[in-house]
């Protein structure tokens, strides 16, 4: 099990009047090598949950197990350096994690810090820049001279350069153009399938992640109100508006199709081409039937 949360709660400013409970009694189990999507309205506890996964926040109640590290509420945590090398976290705002004088320094900081040789670190930086589709000419620029989208790609590249086992990304596509967003999702999907990485993505755009995610988790007011496969999410989709989310268009279309043809047990097709292909098949089969009976 890559990640396991047992009855985890997290309260900000727990000892003051401003105490604010962000997570309540969350249970979660994620096997290694899966791609999980997390969705939920603003303020539902998604970002807090992510920060528990590499020990930036420690649970105020319950137990968090990530790889071979166990964090128990109220106990002194073990050394977290190795956990942080193995769990790469990309924050919501890239400005929060870019700090060096040039993009290259930013990218090699992580690998150097975790013991890579300078040559190895430089090689990793170049590879990560290539993976994110950034021009190598940008390596000598100051990170804050990059455009908003380039900055976000840089922040993701700096985490890729560390080659972590678990990749955790908080709305990584928010300011990227659509094609970059799609390329990023495909890259993460590939890392997951080919290199066995565990990938966790918080997103507001469920429709774009639907064709790729193995598992889904829906957060609402600090609780995990849904956990399961894409098929399960489709079955529960009508509950989404109650959690401040709308039913993604691909699911809406699929539900209509499902109802019209009784496909409730089938694996849903949620990409434009997949959905169109399935509908065409169905329509032609039906037409054939109609002709046969006529």
């Amino acid at each position: 099990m890559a990640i396991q949360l047992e009855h985890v709660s997290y309260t900000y400013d727990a000892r003051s009047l401003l105490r604010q409970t962000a997570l309540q009694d969350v249970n979660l189990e994620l096997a290694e090598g899966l791609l999980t999507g997390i969705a939920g309205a603003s303020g539902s506890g998604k970002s807090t949950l992510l920060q528990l996964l590499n020990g930036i926040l420690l649970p105020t109640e319950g137990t968090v197990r990530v790889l071979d590290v166990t964090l128990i509420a109220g106990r002194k945590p073990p050394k977290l350096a190795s956990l942080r090398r193995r769990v790469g976290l990309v924050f919501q705002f890239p400005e929060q994690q870019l700090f060096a004088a040039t993009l290259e320094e930013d990218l090699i900081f992580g690998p150097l810090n975790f013991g890579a040789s300078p040559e190895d670190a430089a090689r990793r930086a170049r590879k990560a820049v290539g993976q994110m589709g950034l021009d190598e000419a940008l390596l000598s620029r100051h990170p804050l001279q990059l455009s908003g989208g380039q900055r976000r790609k840089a922040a993701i590249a700096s985490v890729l350069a560390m080659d972590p086992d678990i990749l955790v990304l908080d709305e990584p596509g928010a300011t990227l153009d659509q094609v970059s967003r799609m390329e990023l999702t495909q890259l993460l999907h590939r890392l997951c399938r080919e290199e066995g990485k565990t990938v966790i993505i918080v997103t507001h755009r469920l429709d774009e992640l639907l064709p790729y995610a193995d598992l889904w988790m829906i957060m609402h007011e600090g609780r995990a109100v849904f956990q399961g496969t894409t098929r399960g999410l489709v079955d529960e989709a009508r509950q989404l508006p109650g959690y401040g989310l709308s039913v993604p268009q691909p699911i809406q279309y699929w539900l209509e199709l499902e109802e019209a043809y009784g496909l409730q047990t089938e694996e849903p097709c949620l990409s434009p081409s997949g959905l169109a292909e399935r509908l065409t098949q169905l329509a032609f089969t039906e037409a054939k039937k109609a002709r046969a009976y006529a």
Partner: protein
Amino acid sequence: MNAMENIQHKSPVLTGYQENIAAAGEDIPAEGSSKAVTDMVVLEELSFAYDGQHADIHDISLAIGKGEWVTLVGANGCGKSTLIRLMNGLLRTSYGRIYIGGIRLEPGTLGEIRQKVGMVFQNPDNQFIGATVEEDMAFGMEGRCLDAGEMRNRISGYASRLGISDLLHRHPQELSGGQKQRAAIAAILAMEPELIIFDEASSMLDEKARRDWLDLLLEMHNEARYTLLSITHDAEEIAASQRVLVMHQGGLAADLAPQELFRDVGLLRLCRMEPPFRIRFALELEKRGMMPAQQGMTDGSPNPGSEVKRIWPFSWSM
């Protein structure tokens, strides 16, 4: 004849004159022409370079009419944010002219122009100043030396329009993402700008907040008081606007209607965009010989048109 050509090439006066004639045929108003009054934004041969050498904005000329709702799209790093920062003088142009509401942007008119232009940024946290939403709304107006009664009127008026009346006494950091963005807009509207520029203002909103956001833009547009210019990667928001400006590597690559953009595969690739899901789906169906219900049924196919109509009668007109 040869001699004439030579003269034309060598005479800078003549060449300049010819260029003017050529320009008059296009939609570029000459300096001081009457067109400048009905246009909210006029950019003429605008260029800009951060380092003084490599042009980050390259020779852009365009006009945006009063009351228009325009979106500005393009790949990451193509110069969208740079272009809008030139429009209210946050960055100073290296070459070319900018007119806002008929006034030329230059050091002497900067104050006047900034009164006409309101900007809303991607991360509302970057533009909150006050300790409460109300204070934040008052800040800009205080800077303009408005009297207290007028300020109170505007605060209560715009707060109720944006549905944040209950939040006026809260600290901006206590609000959700969508509420913050509304508070930021209320503060901008209270300054009563004529041109409002949004720099990916909806990118951090969750899905439901994005839908409310679109309704708000529509409502503002229908009021006809504002010219709206929005940078966005959101296909739905682009589809809802009237006109799209496509930027590519610092230049203007196209100026067209959203429906045309979503039909133009080459242009979409250029600005690294995908049409909204329902259009991509419709295109995929079309590839397989299934036409949307409105476009009638095709011969030879086993009547799938009616199938589409039965299941979901979507339409091309957005």
